[in-house]
């Protein structure tokens, strides 16, 4: 197997915390150095929050995992200063083709509209994503960020207390105890922390098995996503072919329900299946082969006192639609600024509760979409199979049926319009930038809008300005004034104003819009800012 799976990235080293008589207390301990735990650690470290990450392993995650990273994930990675590394290494693709039996029935083009820094998706092995994060952590550490990443440190017990959590960490030098003001469980779908707390993880389990193979081959298949329903080389099942960097291709082959998993994984069984798909004359090597079944389930609540769950530990989806790592990174994006605000005293602990509101809402959306895709790909009844095939047959000839074809829906960020932090919409602006929405990107003459937003609150004033700059506004809010006349592409107008002449947007540190108004109003800004920080409105009665 590739040496990347064997290379320690954060080898275990004995730490002074292991020698102390009384356990050391840390403000934030993250369990799990997967994409979610690492992204959260970078976010907190960038904000100066002292953060400790523990992982029982010290390498990249093993085997075939995420390959499709969405635009929103790339934008978050930009905010965390490692987005360009991903895009430089990743494979960009726009075209998806869907086949039924031996015919192409339809194709789609993800070509994004102009003026966005990042494409709809890139394909990149999850291990490159994790390595980019570890590199970013090393750079932060070199600049003195209070961030510690400890490998070979397995958390074997957690005990929640009223205002902290005690944890036991097993290492090559024995067990030691730590305390955390906040414990963030990013310990994956099998979450030992969730088990330790005896919490449920309920939802749907899909019975179909999938062979997931990463193969290295020099083939001139185009850089497109190809999805087959019921192809001749895998009768009554589905198949996927997708390109990754380094001439690695991801292949998913549905195998059905009752199979011998061990036998199916053996190269002598895998290779003929792949040859049937790729053709006899193509040379390939297996990088990794596994057999998965998929689940769509979540915890009822993600916040349990001072223990917070993020990523796969909190919710697990089938991979159709690429919502696992992508939604987990959005959990981190949502939690990072809130933890920071609570720890530095600018917001009450109630702000953390909004993580539950917002990310459960998002998880529901992701679970719904992933479950629907899985139902289309693996019809669970005779009737659903008949309709599925009818849709595919019609799609070849009639465009109306194409939106019904579901081989995975594009992972899009969630709108937090129902969140208690979000203020009511007070202007008739574009729906895509209504309160709760993630900010749409716009090319400005000297950079992209998103490069100016995030990490703190921003008041974006378009074609208007506060009367005395900064006068009545909380100094924690950065003011950014833009004019549509400086934006010849017109995107600022269409994405943020629509038909109104001016607007003021209050934008959160995670680049989500929390309030907007047709014009500047200091009292309204003040109120929306307090609301976005879960500060109780002042009552004078």
């Amino acid at each position: 197997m590739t040496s990347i799976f064997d290379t320690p990235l954060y080898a275990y080293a004995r730490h002074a915390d292991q020698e102390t008589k009384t356990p050391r207390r840390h403000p934030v301990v993250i369990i799990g150095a997967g994409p979610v735990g690492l992204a959260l650690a970078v976010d907190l470290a960038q904000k100066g929050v002292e953060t400790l990450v523990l992982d029982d392993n010290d390498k990249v995650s093993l085997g075939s995992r995420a390959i499709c990273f969405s635009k929103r994930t790339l934008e978050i990675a930009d905010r965390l200063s490692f987005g360009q590394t991903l895009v430089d290494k990743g494979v960009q693709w726009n075209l998806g083709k869907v086949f039924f039996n031996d015919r192409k029935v339809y194709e789609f083009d993800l070509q994004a509209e102009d003026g966005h820094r990042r494409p709809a998706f890139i394909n990149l092995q999850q291990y490159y994503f994790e390595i980019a994060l570890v590199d970013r952590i090393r750079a932060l550490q070199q600049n003195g960020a209070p961030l510690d990443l400890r490998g070979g440190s397995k958390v074997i017990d957690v005990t929640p207390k009223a205002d902290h959590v005690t944890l036991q960490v097993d290492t090559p030098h024995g067990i030691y105890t730590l305390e955390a003001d906040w414990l963030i469980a990013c310990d994956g779908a099998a979450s030992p922390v969730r088990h330790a707390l005896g919490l449920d993880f309920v939802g749907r389990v899909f019975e179909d098995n999938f062979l997931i193979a990463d193969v290295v081959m020099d083939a001139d298949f185009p850089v497109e996503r190809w999805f087959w329903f019921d192809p001749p080389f895998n009768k009554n099942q589905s198949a996927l072919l997708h390109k990754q960097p380094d001439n690695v291709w991801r292949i998913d082959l549905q195998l059905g329900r009752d199979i011998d998993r061990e036998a199916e994984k053996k190269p002598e069984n895998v290779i003929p299946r792949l040859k049937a798909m790729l053709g006899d004359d193509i040379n390939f090597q297996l990088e990794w082969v596994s057999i998965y079944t998929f689940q769509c389930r979540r915890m009822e609540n993600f916040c349990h006192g001072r223990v917070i769950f993020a990523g796969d530990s909190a919710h697990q989806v089938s991979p159709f639609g690429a919502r696992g790592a992508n939604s987990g990174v959005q959990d981190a994006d949502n939690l990072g600024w809130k933890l920071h605000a609570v720890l530095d005293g600018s917001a009450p602990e109630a702000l953390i509760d909004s993580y539950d509101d917002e990310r459960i809402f998002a998880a529901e959306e992701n679970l719904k979409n992933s479950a629907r895709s899985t139902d289309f790909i693996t019809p669970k009844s005779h009737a659903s199979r008949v309709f599925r095939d009818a849709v595919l047959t019609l799609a070849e000839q009639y465009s109306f049926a194409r939106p019904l074809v579901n081989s995975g829906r594009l992972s899009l960020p969630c709108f937090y319009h129902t969140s208690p932090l979000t203020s009511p919409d007070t202007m008739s602006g574009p729906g895509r930038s209504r309160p709760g929405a993630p900010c749409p990107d716009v090319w400005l003459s000297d950079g992209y809008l998103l490069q100016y937003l995030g990490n703190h609150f921003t008041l974006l004033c378009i074609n208007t300005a506060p009367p005395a700059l900064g006068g009545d506004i909380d100094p924690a809010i950065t003011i950014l004034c833009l004019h549509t006349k400086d934006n010849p592409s017109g995107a600022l107008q269409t994405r943020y104003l629509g038909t109104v002449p001016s607007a003021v947007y209050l934008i959160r540190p995670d680049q989500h819009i929390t309030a907007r108004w047709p014009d500047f109003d200091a009292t309204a800004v003040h109120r929306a800012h307090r609301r976005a920080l879960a500060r109780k409105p002042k009552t004078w009665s």
Partner: protein
Amino acid sequence: MELTLTPNIAAPDDFYAALLATHDGLSCAESEALNARLILILANHIGDDAVLSQALHAALPPKKRNPA
């Protein structure tokens, strides 16, 4: 919009004969597939959410239907 559940086809016997004729010579599976395609085509033609959900409901077996 309301789902029409009163007579709306000008020549009912002609339509019925035409419907059966499309199934002539088809196996059970082929007929079933044709029906599924027909439902999708008609549903798209209707388009309206409210009408479609009323129709889905009206087609349920009587025992599963809410009393009108």
